[in-house]
Each structure stands twice: as structure tokens, then as C-alpha cells.
């Protein structure tokens, strides 16, 4: 089955991105396809490559990036939400791309299920 994922909060402050990450890992393990992960609202902060958690903490920016490389995931950061929050190409982690809200709607159309993670 094809899943679309929407993440509305950044790493750290809310558990949303953690929960989404673990959901995606579990879905892939079960043989499902992840059509797209769309980052909206503060979710765009998940793509900030300058993020440097404490060494004994998880690093969601790196985890998403590595998962994208391993499974060819399409991680899309909303351009409008990102621009106002200062997430631009110069701080964008490998594996993420910036695009428009149409990509969220398209994920809703193409995926069999859409799951939203937020605050």
C-alpha cells in the first residue's frame, strides 16, 4: 500500500516528527511504499542541516536524510512555510527538496492513505 505522510512540527519541540519517522520505518519494514513525506508548518525545520543535537540524543534531521537515501524517499519541504521560517537551500539537508503545496495535494491523490503528524 502507498502511504503519504504530513509532518506539521519541527524536531525536538513536539514528538510529531519522531512518531512519523518510526511509523515510516515500520511501514517500510512491512513492505509498504512511502509515496512522499511532506513537511509543512514548523515541520520545515526538520530539514535544517545545521541542527546539532546533544551526542546522546537522536538527530532527526540526519535520520530522515539517511532513510531517504536508503529507501529513495521523496522528502518535500513546503516552499512557502520554509521561506518565512528561514529554511532555504543554503541550510537544506541532503535528501530533502523544496517545492510547492501542490505536492501535498498530489500525495493525497496518489497515496492510498494519508497520515498527519503534528501538535
Amino acid at each position, binding site marked *: 500500500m502507498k502511504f503519504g505522510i504530513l509532518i506539521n512540527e519541527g524536531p525536538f519541540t513536539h514528538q510529531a516528527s519522531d512518531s512519523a519517522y518510526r511509523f515510516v520505518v515500520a511501514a517500510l519494514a512491512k513492505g509498504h511504499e512511502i509515496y512522499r513525506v511532506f513537511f*509543512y508548518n514548523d515541520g520545515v525545520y526538520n530539514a535544517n542541516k545545521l541542527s546539532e543535537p546533544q551526542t546522546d540524543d537522536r538527530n532527526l534531521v540526519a535520520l530522515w536524510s539517511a532513510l531517504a537515501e536508503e529507501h529513495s524517499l521523496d522528502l518535500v519541504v513546503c516552499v512557502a512555510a520554509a521561506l518565512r521560517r528561514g529554511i532555504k537551500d543554503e541550510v537544506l539537508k541532503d535528501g530533502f527538496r523544496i517545492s510547492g*503545496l*501542490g505536492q501535498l495535494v498530489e500525495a493525497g491523490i496518489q497515496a492510498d492513505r*494519508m497520515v498527519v503528524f503534528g501538535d
Partner: protein
Amino acid sequence: MEDFDDDGPEIIKRFMYVNRRAPYGTIYALECLEVVLVAAAFDQDVSVVFVDDGVCQLKKNQDTTEIGMKNFSRTYGALDDYDVEKIYVEKESLEARGLTVDDLVIPVEVVAAAQLQVIMAQQDVVISS
């Protein structure tokens, strides 16, 4: 605007955008409206629901001059221009907040919780924020 007709047979799904937050205190109301305006350009069956504090987004006479934030309440009027016509407001939420349809900036369909249960259950994709 993107056109996915070339990708295969056209898919038309029922999309519901659920608003449960007041405006200005958080950005969710504004950023959800931005999604709906984009979504309207796709050839899908779109509905927008206002429930809980989401009904406050539609209150008339918003004036944000003194808080310095952009007043986006007039943009709801554009939903009609974008052919977004299924706009539901939950009756119980409206009443609990001491509001009536006369207080709202656009015409809406007021539905009781029992009706909204049915409408929600018919959706293919539910986007909340």
C-alpha cells in the same frame, strides 16, 4: 498549475480540511487556508470544516491593526471564487462560543455533530493542522 491527467486515469477523491484552532494565536488557521487555496486548483472534491475553536476563524469584524499581524479573514470570501463550496461549521462548537451564523464572514452550512460524523466518514483524505 500542475495537471496529472497525463499520468493515467483521473482520480477524484474527497478531501476534507479540518480547522480546529483559533486564528492569530497560532498560524495553523492561515497555513491551512493556504493549503485549501492550492488544493482548490486540483480537480478534487474539496470540503472545509470548522469545528471547536476553528469556528472563530470565520468571526466577522476582525481587526489586526494593533497586533501587527496580517488580517486574512477576508480571504475566506475567496473560497467561493475558487469553487470551494462545501464549507461546514459545527453547530455545537458555534453555540458553545456564543456565536451564530450572523457573526460569520461567509455563508456556511451549519451541521450538528451527528451530521458531521457522517460527512467525515465519507472522506478519502483528511488533512488537519
